[in-house]
């Protein structure tokens, strides 16, 4: 039996009976995340599953403070990392866990991994970030949409006409040039996602392709989660032995 959380669970929250599925879609802005979340939600609902979607900065508690802080960008890196963690904890306790308890599928447009990567490239240690989010529920599936920086760049320019200050990591002063900063920042982020890929068992999907191709891959990854119980296996070893038979 695997633990439901990565580290110490939250006090006062029962995690035993959560029949719903938690699916996480991770990836940079421009990786096609939002499009994929919408497509997947629609397909799951067509298949008869109740879906609750969630993302970063959507809690009632502090999303206003985060937006305000980003406007003025006066906050230190530790403060910002912690402010995001409040937002995440609030959503986990008040939205994600209740939805899972009710048997819904929770579709998360980014999760702790983006928050950790952002904090780490701003100076937090990996150990600190990992422990901070240790109470997070282990998702049933983590899909990482991997797109080359140049693709992200074209999509950003095509969609909003310019590069975003934060997605370009301008607060890090890597370069005064937005264009250059964007590449340096994305490069740092991908280094963090690279180690998380193994540690957290990301499923890597090539997101340099068209949305329908990406979607087809994601559907293949999602399908086993809803397979009839008899065919579901828990450990990779069991899966291998079954395949040989």
């Amino acid at each position, binding site marked *: 039996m695997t633990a439901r959380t990565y*580290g*110490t669970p*939250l*006090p*006062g*929250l029962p995690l035993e009976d959560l029949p719903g599925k938690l699916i996480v879609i991770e990836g940079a802005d421009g990786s096609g995340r939002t499009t994929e979340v919408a497509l997947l939600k629609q397909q799951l609902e067509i298949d008869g599953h109740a879906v609750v979607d969630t993302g970063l900065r959507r809690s*009632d*508690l*502090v999303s206003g*403070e985060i937006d305000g*802080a980003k406007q003025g960008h*006066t*906050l*230190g*890196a*530790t*403060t910002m*990392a*912690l*402010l995001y*963690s*409040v937002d995440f*904890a*609030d959503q986990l*306790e*008040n939205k994600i866990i209740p939805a899972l308890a009710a048997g819904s599928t929770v579709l998360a447009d980014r999760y702790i991994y983006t928050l950790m990567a952002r904090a780490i490239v*701003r*100076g*937090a*240690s990996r*150990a*600190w970030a990992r*422990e*901070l989010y*240790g*109470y997070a529920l282990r998702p049933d599936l983590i899909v990482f949409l991997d797109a080359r920086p140049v693709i992200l760049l074209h999509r950003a320019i095509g969609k909003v006409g310019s590069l975003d200050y934060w997605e370009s990591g301008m607060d890090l002063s890597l370069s005064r040039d937005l264009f250059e900063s964007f590449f340096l920042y994305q490069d740092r982020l991908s280094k963090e996602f690279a180690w998380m890929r193994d540690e957290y068992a990301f499923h890597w999907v090539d997101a340099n392709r068209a949305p329908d191709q990406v979607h087809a891959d994601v559907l293949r990854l999602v399908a086993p989660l809803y397979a009839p119980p008899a065919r579901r296996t828990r450990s990779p070893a069991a899966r291998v032995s079954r395949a040989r038979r």
Partner: protein
Amino acid sequence: MTPDPPPARHGYPGRLLVFEGLDGSGKSTQAALLGKWLQAQGYRVFFTEWNSSELTASTIRRGKKKGLLTPTTFSLLHATDFADRFERRILPPLRAGYVIVCDRYAFTAFVRDAARGCDPAWVRNIYSFAPRPDRVFYFRVPVAVSLKRKIASRLKINYYEAGMDLGLSDDLTESYEKFQTRLKREYDRLATTDDFTVIDATRAVEEIQRELRENVRPLLRDCPTGEKLIHDG
């Protein structure tokens, strides 16, 4: 920004003096008096209190009022608030050679969060960005004294101070006593593990202040004063 625990003593020119203890232990009065004395000797002094940053104050107030907070979000919000206070208000003057007088520091979070059931190691990790102070004064009083002073001050005991969110008792005063007893047990434990200077805070104000000054004097060797800073610069 975040060295791994345990945090080392800071290597900055200033000094970090921390006052911890239950509500009504008299620590704020003593901190103010000590500050006066330090200023009179020419040191640059900077005061800071728990929960005084403007960033999350309104959220904490709103969350408390609406009962939106769980032990985890309560803990993380206070950590956010403290980080903001630390990054903006404690660290710069500490580096500039000020004597920082902190009315509560990370230890307040350690005791409160532990009393609310958060994992102590998890909480410690979050606060590992905060360096160990030069001295932590723990104002130790029996819970009965804390309660008596609280009542005498005619300040209303608030919901969270009484730990009413924990469901220890439906009666505010009784819950306050039970919750403060938990906090005191945690403080007493930290007194050993974190090398607190324990102050018997049931004594007269003057007597306690004298003891504090004797304790602080040796810590001030080579600590820059305002005048020196001007002349050296």
